[in-house]
């Protein structure tokens, strides 16, 4: 069938009313379904119209056999058949089955909250069990089951999806809906300090791999009902729950809309980590600089939400994404906000100076020694010349070699198991450095420069932007080696041009430095004390522009704040 016709048919199929949909009641439907599934199991995949619109039937056995076939007789699927005490339809009661994956739920909870009430409580309390199947379903939902959330499903495909997500289903003979409860529970890590972003002062909890826990870490920090979580499912096979978090009234509605749009456009097999999402929603894929911030710290996420940004969390990973971001946000450590402002200001300046050094130091050394020796002070020139006497390589080759070695050491250090890793790192560095200098393969100044560059690159708080700068330094090194000072200048200009033109969800990457917005420079190279930072950053166009977290004036603006809160849409 030609494509447009096909999609038209599929669209029509999806929208047919209930009585037109095939139901598992009819044996022919059941038979056809089972045949098709036997032939091609991947027909279960969403989007394929085999299962679309198939309804659950009234016959318990048919339902159960189809379900078993759909999951391929999975050994961890528990089908607990039971008889609801006091139910009509048979002398002993209505037949029912509780179905769940015991790898995704806690069996004992299912037992105590679902099976036990169904088995005993009606009889024990002497309650009249309704005979009509429809009312039976309602009665079970509202009176028997004591879980927090209960839903009904009529669609087979949806039921199977729910089962795969860990929900528990109760199927009753004669009822054409399934009752679905959320008893999801499996082992996850405990909340502990995030490894990649430790702080000396500040909160020490970090995200874990369970979305539920992560959301709770956020919800408990923002006590406002305006905190919104928008949930969606991404990934065809993984069916990963993904949540968009934002504060309604502070975040720009256009931004939230855009995030939603980009996420729903993702059509991929699986979303294992938020980095998969990141690659799809970036503005500019062909750059070494990240346009999305990722963090393991709930307090970072919350702070960003308060500035009007949007966070994206996914199940199965402790890393949350924050958009939009800027280079300056990526260069901030969480600790900057918890220590005093004067110390932080100095540390920030040091950080930026060191980042400039990371990019420029090796290239300047190469340019100066190879192309412009007249620019070096005489004594330095003599030391370097003396050190380079016996070295067989050119300056450029030396530096390149040592930089690559350093990167190799760094990468190796990450991969090694922790006890060995540190030792090898130190020993490797010392041995290689010492040995190389003694064997006169490289000269001591180069080792110093490379070591200092490496140390400087460690001050970059976020790994992804650190990689960006590390790559940039190689590019400028190459230019310096071939063209000297001219190369560095041109290379730097092109790099800055590139950075200027980058955008993160429409917001310029280098804002507020370029385009220059004076009022927001309070948090870039310095950190002014909180009582001086009054306005939220502008690009995240919030309907209310004033932050309200400065203590002394709190009483003065209280009334104003109350008025403002109420006139938000």
């Amino acid at each position: 069938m030609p494509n447009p016709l096909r999609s038209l048919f599929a669209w029509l199929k999806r929208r047919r009313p209930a009585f037109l949909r095939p139901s598992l009641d009819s044996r022919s439907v059941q038979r056809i379904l089972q045949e098709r599934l036997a032939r091609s199991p991947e027909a279960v995949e969403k989007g394929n119209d085999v299962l679309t619109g198939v309804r659950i039937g009234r016959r318990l056995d048919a339902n159960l056999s189809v379900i078993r076939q759909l999951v391929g007789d999975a050994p961890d699927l528990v089908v607990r058949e039971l008889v609801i005490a006091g139910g009509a339809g048979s002398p002993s009661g209505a037949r029912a089955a509780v179905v769940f994956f015991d790898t995704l739920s806690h069996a004992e909870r299912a037992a105590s909250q679902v099976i036990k009430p169904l088995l005993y409580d009606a009889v024990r309390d002497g309650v009249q069990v309704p005979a009509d199947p429809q009312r039976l379903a309602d009665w079970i939902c509202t009176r028997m089951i004591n879980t927090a959330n209960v839903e009904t499903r009529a669609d087979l495909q949806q039921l199977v999806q729910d089962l795969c997500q860990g929900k528990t289903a109760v199927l009753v003979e004669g009822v054409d809906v399934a009752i679905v409860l959320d008893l999801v529970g499996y082992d996850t890590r405990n909340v502990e300090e995030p490894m990649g972003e430790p702080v000396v002062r500040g909160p020490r909890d970090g995200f874990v791999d369970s979305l539920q826990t992560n959301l709770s870490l956020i919800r408990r920090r923002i006590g406002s009902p305006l905190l919104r979580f928008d949930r969606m499912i991404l990934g065809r096979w993984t069916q990963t729950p993904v949540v968009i978090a934002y504060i309604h009234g502070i975040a720009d509605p256009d931004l939230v809309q855009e995030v939603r749009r980009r996420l729903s456009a993702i059509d991929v097999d699986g979303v294992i980590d938020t980095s998969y999402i990141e690659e799809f929603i970036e503005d500019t894929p062909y750059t070494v600089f990240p346009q999305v911030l990722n963090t393991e710290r709930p307090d970072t996420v919350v702070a960003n939400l308060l500035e009007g940004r949007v966070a994206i969390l996914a199940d199965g990973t402790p890393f949350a994404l924050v958009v939009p971001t800027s280079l300056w946000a990526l260069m901030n450590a969480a600790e900057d906000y918890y220590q005093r402002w004067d110390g932080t200001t100095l540390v920030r300046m040091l950080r930026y100076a060191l980042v400039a050094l990371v990019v420029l130091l090796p290239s300047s050394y190469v340019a100066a020694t190879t192309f412009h020796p007249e620019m070096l002070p005489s004594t330095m020139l003599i030391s370097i010349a003396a050190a380079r006497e016996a070295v067989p390589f050119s300056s450029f080759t030396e530096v390149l070699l040592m930089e690559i070695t350093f990167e190799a050491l760094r990468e190796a250090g990450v991969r090694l198991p922790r006890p060995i890793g540190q030792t090898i790192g130190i020993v490797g560095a010392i041995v290689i450095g010492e040995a190389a200098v003694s064997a006169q393969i490289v000269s001591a100044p180069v080792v110093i420069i490379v070591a200092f560059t490496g140390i400087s690159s460690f001050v970059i708080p976020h790994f992804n932007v650190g990689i960006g700068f590390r790559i940039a330094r190689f590019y400028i090194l190459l230019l310096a080696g071939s063209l000297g000072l001219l190369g560095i200048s041109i290379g730097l200009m092109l790099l800055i041009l590139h950075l200027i033109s980058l955008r993160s969800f429409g917001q310029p990457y280098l804002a507020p430095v370029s385009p220059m917005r004076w009022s927001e420079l309070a948090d870039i190279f310095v950190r002014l004390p909180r009582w001086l930072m009054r306005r939220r950053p502008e690009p995240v166009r919030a309907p209310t522009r004033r932050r309200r977290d400065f203590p002394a004036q709190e009483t003065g603006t209280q009334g104003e704040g109350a008025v403002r809160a109420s006139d938000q849409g």
Partner: protein
Amino acid sequence: MARTDRRLWTMVLCGLLLGAAGCYDRVELNELAIADLMAIDRTEDGRLKVSLQFIIPSELTNPGGVGAGAGLKDPFYIMEAIGETLPDAFSLLQAKLPRRLFTSHIRVVVLGEDLARAGIGPVFDSLTRIRELRISADVIVTRGEASILLRAAPRLGRLPVSALSNILNQQIVPVRSIRELAIALVSEGIDPFVPAVGLAQRIETELEAGVRAQEFELQGVGIFRGDRLVGFAPLELARGLAWLVDEAPFAAATIPWPPPGGLPSPPLRPSDLSPEEMMIQRDAPPGFPEGPGQGLLAPNKITPMVLRGQVSFHTEVKDGQVAVRVHARAVDDIVTNQAGLDLTDPAVIPPLERELARSIEQRMRAMLRLAQEELNADVFGFGELIRKNHPQLWRELRRDWHAHFRQLPVHISAEVKVRRTGLTGNPTIFRPEQLRQ
């Protein structure tokens, strides 16, 4: 081609272009012969003999070689070549050098007397035009051949050029760089001068027995007229020159006390000692006059040290005749008081100051005499001063400035303030009653 493909290709090509393009100016550091001292002489047939002193970096940082312990070798070596012009000599020298000649670190240029007397103009064109030479390098002149100066091996510091540069920077005589000399050469109303340096013998020690032991010695100033050397001013007069160009020397100058011309009578000073006590002469052995130190040849001396000096110049025009007025102001510190002057008495200070001022004036006048009458070279820049203050007058005078300079009336005056007297008030060797007023 699809758009992405085209972009990719463009980037690859640009990358290749960059890789192939550069490397025109590449030179590794250890392919350079770094020169730090240059001496230029004139040969008999009028060509230039250029001697360069090159640094051996490995000797400097790793003396004696790795593990060899073979003893200290000189961290420099000298090469020379003769050519028509400076770059000519450089390229001839390159033929004798295993590495590329690198002159950007030359800190001092030494000019030989012959060359200086013949005229330094041509050489100076090279010195300013060559891109590699630093125009902030200092220039000095020496009696005789300049290349001999390169052989000195000063003890302090490993590089001779550092020692030379440091001597020049002691602020004893004014220093001139290529840039400043070039300005003087180009300007009409000023003649250049440069410090004159020679060699001095170091005292041999046990360790250095037999070893060549010569140090640099600042010997004064070489005076030029136009671009030719016309004479040398010794160190004493060179300090007057320093005053006259407003670069006051940081030096000590000794004056006799009481001054030869005598002093106005001092006010009577009450003594708190009885006449009998004053009569006691405890120290002097028989035959010697009273008071400590009277046995020395020149006992009655006071030495002030100039801390700061400022000179102002004024021009006066009277009936179409111009005169220059120079006024020097100095702040001094007394460092030696052998004359037994009572420095705790404020009344003592003004005559002392007047006498010190007179000595400075004398020095300046002596230098002025040398420059005006003997050498006829306006090293002080009075011509420029007239040009700046009275341009129309200058236009008449400039044609024959040296003749006018000879007759130029210059009024010199000085003023000294003695602020401090060192660490002690009164001399520790004199008893109170022996002090003069």
